[in-house]
């Protein structure tokens, strides 16, 4: 128990050192700008635009749904899963978005550290390995649905960042 505060401090130290160097205002601005950039990137992928939002796609329950993400940790967790999915798609369209998500998660961690929130790095889906068959058989569906939901999730996050989300 004595280790608690010390461990927490050590855990946050790398991020605290960043916060010291980078004004938190800049981090907030960059976070919002990066979210907008990813949203625009997704919009620029032509085949995601033609997909009907009314049609439900079954069998892709592992892609995070459209539930609101209220906290920074939930945001990080959600983005980790999207990053995991996009990375596994090996598509030229989404490699850059996957990198952007990596940066976005780092920014969220900086924001969290500025609020003294311990934000352990989210790992994504543990059962993801077993989904290899699904991905292989339905790459297009997965990409389209994942990008569509990611876009919506990012727009939701953009709004919530203005409301100073909790840990």
């Amino acid at each position, binding site marked *: 128990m004595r280790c608690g505060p010390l461990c927490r401090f050590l855990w946050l130290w790398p991020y605290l050192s*960043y916060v010291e*160097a*980078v004004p938190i205002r800049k981090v907030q601005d*960059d976070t919002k*700008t*990066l979210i*907008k*950039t990813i949203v*625009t990137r997704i919009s*620029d992928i032509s085949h995601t635009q033609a997909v009907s939002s009314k049609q439900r796609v079954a069998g892709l329950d592992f892609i995070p749904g459209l539930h609101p993400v209220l906290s920074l940790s939930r945001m990080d967790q959600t983005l980790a899963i999207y990053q995991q999915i996009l990375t596994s798609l090996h598509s030229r369209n989404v*490699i*850059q978005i996957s*990198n*952007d998500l*990596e*940066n976005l998660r*780092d*920014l969220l961690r*900086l924001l969290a550290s500025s609020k003294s929130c311990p934000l352990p790095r989210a790992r994504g889906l543990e059962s993801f390995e077993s989904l290899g068959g699904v991905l292989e058989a339905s790459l297009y569906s997965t990409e389209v649905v994942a990008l569509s939901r990611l876009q919506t999730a990012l727009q939701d996050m953009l709004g919530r960042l203005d409301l100073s989300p909790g840990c």
Partner: protein
Amino acid sequence: MTCQKFCVALLHWEFIYLTTALNLAYPITPWRFKLSCMPPNTTYDFLLPTGISKNTSNLNEHYEAVVKAKLNLSTTYFSNLSSKTTFYCCFWSKEDKNCSVHADNIDGKDFVSTVNSLVFQQIGANWNIQCWMKEDLKLFICYMESLFKNPFKTYDLKVHLLYVLPEVLEESPPVPQKSSFQIVQCNCSVHDSCECHVPVPTAKLNHTLLLYLKIKSGGINFQSPLMSVQPINVVKPDPPLDLHMEITDAGHLRISWSSPTLVPFQLQYQVKYSENSSINMRKADEIVSTTSLLIDSVLPGSSYEVQVRGKRLDGPGIWGDWSTPLIFTTQDVVYFPPKILTSVGSNVSFHCIYKSENKIVSSKKIVWWLNLAEKIPPRQYAVVGDRVSKVTFPHLNATKPRGKFTYDAVYCCNQQECHHRYAELYVIDVNINISCETDGYLTKMTCRWSANAIQSLMGSTLQLRYHRSSLYCSDVPSIHPMSEPKDCHLQRDGFYECIFQPIFLLSGYTMWIKINHSLGSLDSPPTCVVPDSVVKPLPPSSVKAEITVEIGLLKISWEKPVFPENNLKFQIRYGLNGKEVQWKMYEVYEAKSKSASVLVPDLCAVYAVQVRCRRLDGLGYWSNWSSPAYTVVMDIKVPTRGPEFWRIINEDTTKKERNVTLLWKPLMKNDSLCSVRKYVVKHHTSRNGTWSEDVGNHTKSTFLWTEQAHSVTVLAVNSIGASFVNFNLTLSWLMSKVNSVQSLSAYPLNSSCVLLSWTLLPSDYSLMYFVTEWKILNEDSEVKWLRIPPSVKKYYIHDHFIPIEKYQFSLYPVFMEGVGKPKIINSFPQDDIEKHQHDAGLYVIVPIIISSSILLLGTLLISHQRMKKLFWEDVPNPKNCSWAQGLNFQKRTDIL
């Protein structure tokens, strides 16, 4: 029968041999061992007393003599044996000189007897054997060589190795069947040596390999006892590679080498070296576990010879072969390091030991020179012991190549004497600027750098290395130990270009150039770039330009590029379209702006417009200019004024009518804004009131002037409407009699300009303007006219005047009430011009003549006075003249 018995006995022997194999197999040692064989019926009459094997050193010479003495007997003895005779053989070694011989007794039971190996040495056949595993862990090798003492004939030597490698890894594997043994033929040379190769799978390196040898030589069969070995325990490394010697900064000799590449475990090394110099001789042998060894106090003018071999560090193994000897010779002056490659601004030191006339020069007497041109100040020296001197170069500047020499030569000198050998100092400017640019899609970052600064360092290779931090750059970028190389390609402009794609927009990429050279490697100062901060956006799209109707401003509109999402500022450049556009700039700092309007002087010209953008916070680069957009010339407003016009009157005296032709000049664009669709002549007379006449695009209009006064106005009309400001002209019979111009003069200044000047009479009418007409006199040429403001008294008329022609100039005063009476003069014909020119000459010549006359008259007067004076000076003085003495010259001469 004999044969059958023999075969049965042989089979029996082999059965016994195999059943006892596993327990009695000779364990192959990492060192050499011997195989000795003798016929089965040999009686050991000369068996040595027990215990002699434990102390054989004193007896070696004795037994050597015995063997030599019996050599001939033994040879005879063996030669009498049949080829089917199988010899009993045993293994022994220096460490264990007892041989265990397996044989069958008369009861058919096997027995094992221990015989001292000296017996075999004297009468048996003997071989040296060594077996090992090659370092690639794939091949097991047994090497055997015949001892010269062998008393049998060694021609026709054939050796086979039979082996079995059990599948299971057990300490006591089941007894293998004879048939399970595989056979390999060994390669034998003429020197009575053979090498047998057994392939060993990697997976079975820890298994027990069972093997024995069948040797046939001179018609006699020999068969060794069974041997066993775990191949992994007898691995023999190859000799070490890249044996190298160098002198360290501290003056030691460093021997270094690299481990054989294939060996899977750590090695220990044995280093054998010798030093040979006029001062010292020494030999040494050391075992180390590292791949280098330092030898103290290297001496100038010495020779060092080194060999190294390796052996497994932990666990059993065999010493490998010695490496090829390496000889390193030091000169009379030793520099360490002999060459230094460093970067600008760094500090380096050279050490030296100087030997002169077989004596080491005291370090206190050593001085240093640079390029044999300048003595290095003693404050840069330091003494490191009695023999070693050190010089330090602080804050180095880049080496300036002198011809083909791209280094500075550093000399260590014994006071006034410098040895011809020198150390080389290469100082390279490694300040390589790396500039990066992220594309407008935010997916690619291109970094460029030039290698011009280090071109002088021949043989160097350059590599961009980078380290990516998760977010942003640190304040002071540093070279990170974990870095990655990046492929860069040389471009035509001499720059290297490296592309990062995809990118991490907000990560910090710390980059530097690594310069690799045989003398060492250098790193350029690291620079850190965040791709997001070096974005060059795409240029704005959908750029349009127009001159706004009624407002009359140049309006530019555009669409911002999709990326970046940051706020942008915009820069507009515009100019009159032409071959070389003179651009004017306008900046828009409102991030959400999509258009801007600027004031332009000429509303009826084609403007070219381009727009570019950049992040509002100043980061990144300006985008390229957008494609140019052009304005279209169209009517902006109604014409600013109507055209200036004049009239020409053709008078018909009989009818008292005058045909009046109105003339006007086409309205220019800056007045018409921007085109004229038609002209309208507006008439007004007291009798007929006002009416208009549409004359289209014509520039003249004729009407009949019948009334006392007739006012006309010419309007210009474009697509917007008719001009509001127009010139009026009233033709009045009454006013045409009013004379207000007193005089008029015309002075031709040159063939293209005539100065017109006039004086006015007082008048009660309000003068609006003048109109002057001119034409060539006596010719039916076109009348030219010009409107002149009312306030001027002279006016320069620019036209192409023909000097030999006479012109008529008329000046019309135009009043509100009508056109007044003109003043008409004939212009300046050539004669008049000449007359004027002559007059001008007269004005010059007359004063000259007058002044010359005055001068001449003055001269005559002065001359007259002078002559008079001279004349009277020659008249004699009567007082001095004898004949004139007493004469009165005032008296009349006629008296005489």
